[in-house]
C-alpha cells in the first residue's frame, strides 16, 4: 500500500523510513512564520531562558496584522519586533511595506514544494497550494521551535477532494471552496489533510489554489494540498532559484475518504452570518442590503481578484450607501494593479484603496463595523464580532460577487453584470 503526501513528507522531516496516519512524530520545520504576534512570541522565548534562536535562517517574519500601527500600543509592538529580528540576526523580516504574510512568503520565494512550513497563523494552510506541508500552530510552539528546532505533529489522515466539470461564468475558486465547506461543515475535515485534485484544480491558477488551501482551515483541516504541476513550477521559477523536491501521494495511497464534486452547475456562493459553513447559493440571499464591501485579505487580495473586481466596476459607480474597501494582498500586487490601471478604475468607481494588510479581517485595524451594519467580504471568516463589532453581520463571497454587490448596495448575483 502506498503513502499519502502527508505520510511521506512527515516521514522525511522526522527522519523515519515511513510513518502512518495517527502516529505522533517529532519534526524539524524548514520555515517558521510569525507576524505581528512575534513580539508576544519573543516574550515566551525569553521565558524559556536561552539567548539566541537556533535557526535564524528558517524564520520568516512579515508585519501585516495592524500596519501601519494604529495606536502607540501597536507601534510599540512593531518596535519590539524590529529590535528582536535585529538582535537575533533574522534576515527574512518584512516591514509594513510588504504585505499579508500568506501572500508575501510565496512571493519572496520562501515556500517550496516538499517543505514543512509552520506558522503562528491559522491560514498557514495556504502554502499547500505549492505542495508544501503547511499548518498553523500557536505562539508557545513557535517559541519552542525557535529554541529547539523541533515540534511534535500527528500524522493526519487524508481526505481527497476531486473537483471535476467546467466552472460556469461568474463562478470562481472562492465559490467552490465555500460550497465545499458548506457541504462538509466547519469540522468536516477536522485534523485531516485535504488534497485537492481533479480537472478543475489542474486548470486553476496558482492564486485560485491558494484560495482553496487558505480556506481548508475553515473546515478544520490541518493542511490543504495541491500536487505541484507546470503552473507551480512556473510560479516558483520567477520567485526562487533554490532547489526543491516535489513530494506527492502515491497512486495507491490510502485516503480516508475520497469526495467528488462537479462544479458545472454551481452558482455563486455566500457564507452567511455567523459561521463559514452557513453557505447558501446567491439566489437565496440576493437583495440583502450591505453597508460595507471588502475586497482583499489572504484569501482574495491577489492581482487576479482585483482585476475581476475592476472589470465588473469599470465605468460604473458603486451604490451611494456602500463603502468599498480594497486591500491588495501585497505591495507587489499593489504596484502591479497600479501599472495595469486596475487601481485607477477601482478609485473612479468609488472604492477606497488601502495599503496591504490584514486589518479589518480580524477587527484589529481599519474598516471596523458599527452595530446593525452588514459587510460583504472576500475574507475567510464571518464569526460574530470578527470585524470589531458583535452586533454586525458579515457575509463572505468571491471578489466578483462583492464587486457586483457594491454596485447595487445589496447582495447581487454577479451573473447579471456579465455580458
Amino acid at each position, binding site marked *: 500500500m502506498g503513502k499519502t503526501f502527508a505520510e511521506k513528507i512527515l516521514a522525511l522531516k522526522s527522519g523515519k523510513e515511513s510513518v502512518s496516519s495517527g502516529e505522533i512524530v517529532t519534526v524539524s520545520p524548514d520555515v517558521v512564520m510569525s507576524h505581528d504576534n512575534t513580539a508576544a512570541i519573543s516574550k515566551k522565548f525569553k*521565558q524559556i531562558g536561552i539567548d539566541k534562536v537556533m535557526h535564524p535562517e528558517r524564520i520568516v517574519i512579515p508585519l501585516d496584522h495592524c500596519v501601519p500601527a494604529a495606536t502607540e500600543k501597536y507601534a510599540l509592538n512593531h518596535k519590539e519586533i524590529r529590535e528582536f529580528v535585529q538582535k537575533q540576526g533574522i534576515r527574512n523580516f518584512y516591514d509594513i511595506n510588504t504585505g499579508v504574510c500568506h501572500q508575501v512568503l510565496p512571493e519572496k520565494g520562501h515556500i517550496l514544494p516538499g517543505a514543512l512550513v509552520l506558522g503562528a497563523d491559522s491560514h498557514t494552510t495556504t502554502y499547500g497550494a505549492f505542495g508544501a506541508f503547511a499548518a498553523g500552530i*500557536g505562539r508557545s510552539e513557535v517559541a519552542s521551535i525557535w529554541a529547539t528546532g523541533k515540534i511534535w505533529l500527528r500524522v493526519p489522515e487524508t481526505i481527497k477532494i476531486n473537483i471535476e466539470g467546467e466552472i460556469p461564468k461568474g463562478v470562481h475558486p472562492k465559490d467552490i471552496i465555500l460550497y465545499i465547506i458548506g457541504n462538509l461543515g466547519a469540522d468536516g475535515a477536522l485534523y485531516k489533510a485535504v488534497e485537492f485534485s481533479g480537472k478543475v484544480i489542474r486548470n486553476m491558477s496558482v492564486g485560485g489554489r491558494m484560495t482553496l488551501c487558505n480556506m481548508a482551515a475553515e473546515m478544520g483541516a490541518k493542511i490543504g494540498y495541491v500536487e505541484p504541476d507546470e503552473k507551480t513550477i512556473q510560479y516558483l521559477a520567477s520567485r526562487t532559484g533554490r532547489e526543491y523536491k516535489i513530494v506527492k501521494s502515491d497512486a495507491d495511497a490510502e485516503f480516508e475518504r475520497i469526495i467528488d464534486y462537479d462544479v458545472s452547475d454551481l452558482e455563486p456562493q455566500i457564507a452567511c452570518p455567523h459561521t463559514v459553513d452557513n453557505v447558501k447559493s446567491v439566489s437565496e440571499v440576493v437583495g440583502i442590503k450591505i453597508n460595507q464591501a471588502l475586497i482583499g485579505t489572504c484569501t482574495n487580495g491577489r492581482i487576479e481578484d482585483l482585476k475581476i473586481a475592476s472589470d465588473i466596476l469599470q465605468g460604473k459607480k458603486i451604490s451611494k450607501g456602500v463603502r468599498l474597501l480594497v486591500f491588495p494582498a501585497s505591495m507587489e500586487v499593489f504596484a502591479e494593479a497600479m501599472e495595469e490601471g486596475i487601481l485607477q478604475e477601482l478609485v473612479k468607481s468609488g472604492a477606497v484603496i488601502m495599503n496591504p494588510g490584514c486589518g479589518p479581517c480580524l477587527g*484589529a485595524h481599519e474598516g471596523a463595523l458599527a452595530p446593525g451594519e452588514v459587510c460583504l467580504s472576500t475574507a475567510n471568516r464571518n464569526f460574530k464580532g470578527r470585524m470589531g463589532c458583535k452586533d454586525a453581520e458579515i457575509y463572505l463571497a468571491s471578489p466578483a460577487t462583492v464587486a457586483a454587490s457594491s454596485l447595487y448596495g445589496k447582495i447581487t448575483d454577479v451573473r447579471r453584470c456579465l455580458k
Partner: protein
Amino acid sequence: MSIKGRVWKYGDDVNTDVIFPGKYTYTVTNPEEMAKHALEDLDPEFAKEVEKGDIIVAGRNFGCGSSREQAATCLKYAGVGAIVAKSFARIFFRNAINQGLPLVQCKKAVKNISSDELISVDFEKGRLSCKKGIFNFPPLPESVLGILNDGGLIPHTRKILGIEKGG
C-alpha cells in the same frame, strides 16, 4: 490528576473570536486582563461569574478559527479547570495543552451533562463522573500528557533543554 468543578455548557463551533475577540489580540496582552474578556461575545456573564476550577462543556469543534493562543490563555487565567467537548479544533487543542489547560474529548459525556451541575474528571484513569453516570474517555497520548504535566510547553521546553527554573 483529577478535578471537580461546576459546568458551563455551550454548543457546537465555539470559535476563537467569541472566546477572545480579535480586536484585543494586540491590545490586551496581560493574562489576567485577557481573562476578563473570556467568552465575551458568546456569554458576557461568564467572565464575571466563573470560579476557579469550573469546567466548560461544549459540543463539536470547540476553539475553531484563529490560531490565537490567547483563546486558551484567557480561559486558563479565568480559572477554567478543564474543557470537555465532543471535539476540538486542532490548533486550539495544541494551544490549550501548551498552556497547561487539560482537555477531554468525550461525545457521550457531553450529551449527558447539564449546565451548573458538578462533575469530576480523572485524567489518568480517563473517567468522567456526572449526575447521569460515569463515562470513560481515552487518555491523551503520552507525549502530549508530558507537556500538560510539566505545566505547559514553555516549562516543558525548559525541562528538555535542561534549563533550571529562574535560569
